[in-house]
């Protein structure tokens, strides 16, 4: 099953490689990973998407907790949470496709942020499956290039991951 694990860790050089090294050494999957400093610059927050059986996920969280640089973590999948991913997508925009692409962007609440004779760059935010759907809808003929942030996630309501 897919799990999103949020991790607060010391913002130290090398901390990221401890996490990625752990995953490769123990044969765990990383589907996506984002990391940036928090409001407290000494702390980074990492959002990691992985998958595995319950037993593997339990080991992953335990092994992560064992890393000295990891301060706290939360498996967001256990409870309701909000998940958003950001995408910039460069799309072919020539001939009849020009109008069509613009209309699709509107439907998906995307914003065109760059325009040339032949292409658009569209900015789109949403749950990862919405971004997938947008790419699928445009199809491989129109999609020239994509860049995705990987999901960000936060627990709903009072549950928080903070020091």
């Amino acid at each position, binding site marked *: 099953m897919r799990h999103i694990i949020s991790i607060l860790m*010391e913002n130290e050089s090398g901390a990221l490689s401890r996490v990625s*090294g752990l995953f490769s*050494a123990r044969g765990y999957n990383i589907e996506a990973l984002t990391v940036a400093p928090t409001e407290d610059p000494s702390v980074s927050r990492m959002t990691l998407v992985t998958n595995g059986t319950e*037993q593997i996920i339990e*080991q992953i969280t*335990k*092994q992560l907790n064992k890393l*000295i640089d990891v301060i706290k973590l939360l498996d967001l999948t256990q409870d309701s949470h909000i998940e958003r991913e950001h995408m910039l997508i460069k799309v072919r925009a020539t001939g009849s496709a020009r109008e069509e692409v613009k209309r699709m962007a509107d439907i998906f609440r995307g914003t065109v942020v760059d325009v040339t004779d032949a292409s658009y760059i569209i900015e789109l935010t949403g749950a990862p499956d919405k971004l997938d759907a947008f790419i699928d809808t445009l199809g491989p003929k129109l999609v020239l290039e994509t860049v995705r942030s990987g999901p960000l996630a936060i627990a709903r309501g009072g549950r928080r991951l903070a*020091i």
Partner: protein
Amino acid sequence: MSSTPHGEPITGAEIFVRSLQAQGVKHLFGYPGGAVLHIYDALYKQDQIEHILVRHEQAAVHAAEGYAKSTDMPGVVLVTSGPGATNAVTGIADAYMDSVPLVVFTGQVPLPLIGNDAFQEVDTIGITRPCVKHNFLVKDVRDLAATIKKAFYIATSGRPGPVVVDIPKDVTAHRCVFEYPETVEVRSYNPNVKGHPGQIKRAVDLILSAKRPMIYTGGGIILDHAAAELTEFARLLGYPVTNTLMGLGGFPASDKLSVGMLGMHGTYEANMGMHHSDVLIAIGARFDDRVTGNIEKFCPHAKIVHVDIDPASISKNVKVDIPIVGGVKSVLTDLIEVLKATSERPDADALAAWWEQIDEWRSADCLRFDRAAEVIKPQFVVETLWKLTGGDAFVTSDVGQHQMWAAQYYPFDKPNRWINSGGLGTMGFGLPSAMGVQFAHPDATVCTITGEGSIQMNIQELSTCLQYHLPLKILNLNNGYLGMVRQWQEFFYQGRYAMSYMESLPDFVKLAEAYGHVGMQIEKPGDVEGAIREALAMKDRLVFMNFLTDPTENVYPMIPAGAGQNEMILI
């Protein structure tokens, strides 16, 4: 608090030395080189810390491991950058697998050169990351003392392990005011020592309900110095106790409750007892594959209580029913208290029937060997050593058949006496680790049981032994083969002995003599006892005993790979 008087700035090298002094370090195992020369100069000017010069950095780490494993002190190592650090890696990995508290200092090229492929530069932090509990690169002399304090704290608390501190050369030249912190706090690291009271109560209920109980303990008992608590706990219940290779001595082997070691070369009674148990009480052990055999067939009837300081060890290989995260000493103390407070007792009839069954397994006498043989049986050598040392020596070993024979035929009654490389299985561990033990226990009898393959992996340390007058007793069970490899080739490769024959062996007697020690060659069973006696009597000399042992002897009993604990091959 330790600090420089009048707040006068001193160099990083001096801070290093002062920090170690403040930490109470008495012995430092190491080897010099360019990146650590400032530190060696600072060490030269003091006499509180004794630096031991080994002949290879791997040996420095193993010596520090022997030191730590036989005491309650961490081992401390200092090596130079580049090859010094890479040579140390095997030892560091070894310490990581066996949870040995070590602080290993590595020199590094000066900060401005890092990343430039400078002379003797390696990414020590990167190379050691997967085999340390934690590591630090010190980038500012002002962080040095606090980092050292943290390193010792992390290495010795929770589940112990090696911590590497990488120090660039220029940091050891920079100056700042020295102040060694009295306390240390790492916000992201708070090992949980005390077990959860609710879990402890649940565990006691399950433990008392057992009809076929088994107490299975590992290196955690040794590391947490909990042998006395374990012994009280087991005797209170009257339950059988089995120890892992790492846990030998954690419960007195001579106690009638002891069923010996379990696992691949454990006793028949221990493994059968495990397999048929209905309640398994695992304490400070980690369900290693050499213990469980085929995991699918492991303890099919047992409900399992597992006590361990490391949550990640719990339910990693085997799903347990009652996990208790905590230090084994603390949890055992609590278990004993709850047991004493309750009026419930174990089911005496069930227990009597269980012991009857265990005694039947015992009667298979799985450790018997041919005592009338014309050649020296390795088991006989170990047994004789045990007899002549009153079972009270420190014994280190290398890796192979001799290691198993040492574990089987030298039953330990005390903890911290049996020093071996369990997790990583590092040939070359025996001699240097014995040096560390002897430094920690200068007056004790320290023996190394080794093989002609393993001993050659760190034989150069015979020179260190001469320099420091370490009167080790080395028992080389020389079967002319990489015996453990040969055994597997005999069993599983139809006797195709690829590369397991040690040709062109040196004359070990002459070799020992060349290094300035006493060498002995023993070729007949009748000479074994006399030779060991004579060697033990030479209190101030290292004696290298080269026993020509049966080249075809195998280690029995054995659980073949893929088999369950109830599928042992007896002799």
